């Protein structure tokens, strides 16, 4: 069930949450809507679900225009950031809710619920109440509940946002495995680019109600359309009109026509990578990412003068985001 959104617009009072947004989500894919708070990603997701109405534009699921359909009829599974567990029902009753209102008979409901609890690894907890579960367990229950009615589409709104870092990472992997097994068209919303790049096949980067760029993680990283996308999916230094990734910043001890002079301000060891912060002659602050080996070889110290040479830069013609693809400056031909 592919999903298409055409020209979606939505405003809340004075605030334009979605501004002519169009996206294509291929059937069976796992897509991330990525962006900062207020970018409209949750609004878009909820509009696809039918939990928000659109002022303009339409939503098509599997080719059918569902814009006028209420959420009940869209057959979407929705998972909320704060679980939205039915706190007055047991885990079993939660997961079986959708089936119960579809008047499945008791035995079938029991079978399916247990099947799903097995899938999400919550078997044995069927009689507990949500208040007795951990956050991660509650979210897995919410997922099972959404999957129980075999939705065409699975929508997750910052599903791991309320969880601890470790649990988040575990569930992230688990979601990917689940998708590989079930192949339901899935869209999830996140503000965490690492999470998006780890899990999703396709990313849609949004900002201020507009789509900045969509593509695979690689495409977005290597060929960002504008400064916003570039700085959102990874770390970025700004050198005048150019943008350089810290790992594309070479540090050498001798100047030449391509280098800029900088003074080492601070050397921070962040696990396997070393971050060296420089201040340039014009006051700009740049940092370069080096390996431990490189650092040792260069024997850098705080206060030392060294020379920075970008291996690869991007520039975006000084125009605002959402413009054409930026030009990238390849390494100087030798």
């Amino acid at each position: 069930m592919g999903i298409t959104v055409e020209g979606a617009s939505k405003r809340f009072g004075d605030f334009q949450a979605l501004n002519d947004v169009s996206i294509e989500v291929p059937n069976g894919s796992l897509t991330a809507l990525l962006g900062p708070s207020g970018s409209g990603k949750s609004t878009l997701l909820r509009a696809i679900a039918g939990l928000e109405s659109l002022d303009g534009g339409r939503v098509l699921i599997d080719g059918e225009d569902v814009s006028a359909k209420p959420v009940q009829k869209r057959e979407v599974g929705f998972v909320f950031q704060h679980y939205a567990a039915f706190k007055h029902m047991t885990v079993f009753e939660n997961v079986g809710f959708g089936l119960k209102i579809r008047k499945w008979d008791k035995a079938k409901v029991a079978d399916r619920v247990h099947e799903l609890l097995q899938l999400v690894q919550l078997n044995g907890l069927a009689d507990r109440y949500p208040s007795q579960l951990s956050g991660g367990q509650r979210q897995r229950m919410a997922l099972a509940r959404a999957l129980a009615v075999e939705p065409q589409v699975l929508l997750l709104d910052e599903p791991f946002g309320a969880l601890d870092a470790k649990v988040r990472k575990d569930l992230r992997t688990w979601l990917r495995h689940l998708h590989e097994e079930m192949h339901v068209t899935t869209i999830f919303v996140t503000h965490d680019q690492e999470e998006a790049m780890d899990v999703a096949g396709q990313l849609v980067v949004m900002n201020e109600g507009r789509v900045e760029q969509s593509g695979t993680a690689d495409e977005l990283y290597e060929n960002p359309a504008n400064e916003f996308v570039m700085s959102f999916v990874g770390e970025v230094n700004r050198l005048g009109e150019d943008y350089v990734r810290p790992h594309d910043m070479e540090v050498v001890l001798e100047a030449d026509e391509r280098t800029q002079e900088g003074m080492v301000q601070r050397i921070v060891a962040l696990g396997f990578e070393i971050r060296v912060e420089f201040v340039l002659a014009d006051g700009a602050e740049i940092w370069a990412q080096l390996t431990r080996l490189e650092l040792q070889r260069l024997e850098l110290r705080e206060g030392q003068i060294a020379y920075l040479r970008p291996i690869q830069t991007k520039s975006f013609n000084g125009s605002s985001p959402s413009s054409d693809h930026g030009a990238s400056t390849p390494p100087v031909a030798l």
Partner: protein
Amino acid sequence: MRSASSSRSRWGLRTLGLGYLALLLLAPLVLLFYKTFEHGLAPPLDAITSPDGLHALKLSLLMVAIAVPLNTIFGVGCALLLVRHRWKGNAVIDSVINLPFAISPVVIGLSLFLLYGTKGWLGPDLAEAGIEILFSVPGMVLASIFVSVPFVVRETVPVLQEIGTEQEQAATTLGANAWQTFWRITLPSIRWGVAYGVVLTTARVLGEFGAVSIVSGSRSGETETLPLFVQKAFDNFEPAGAYGASVLLALLALSTLLAMNVLKRKEDA
């Protein structure tokens, strides 16, 4: 999630709910104002400013002036006790405080009557000491206090719980003693909750009828509060008096509602 049927049901609910309110609460109230001033401002005004009317007003205000401060001090102290001290008796205190909510005012009046009456437990001894409780002001005050005990406590407790003890702890690290901490830190942070409780207490004391009617004997010009004045005027077929006093009480009630609203917002802020 909007659809034709949901907006139909929305309007259905509105008609039902708001219609009920209009019929039960608003219409009678509006009619009262209309009926009172039907023949002009003079009749009700004269009735209220008659000696008996003025006395009733003064007596009602006297009840407020005594009962409210007492119950406020008690209420804040009790709230402090309940929230900041763990004690086995707290549950009992809490239950006793809730009693006035649920007991009939007539039962309250009767119990006071039995306690302080000539054949009661304390009656004879107090009479010997020359203290008259029943059929005079002290009894009415006791009744007023009884019925309005819960309000300040109940409104202060949640606020006390919410503000927590961190600010107070900070104050003590800066050298404040218990009284200073209370006066400068605790009290200001709970003031809107307390104020709200005070308003409720006042309204309750002003409006008290059943208990006071038993305890006071309702002697015009002597032990008759405004609500009792209303009853007597009604019984004596004096509509101007009954309506006049009722309108006055209704206006006081509406001011109470206004105050409640304003304070509620300050409390939530």
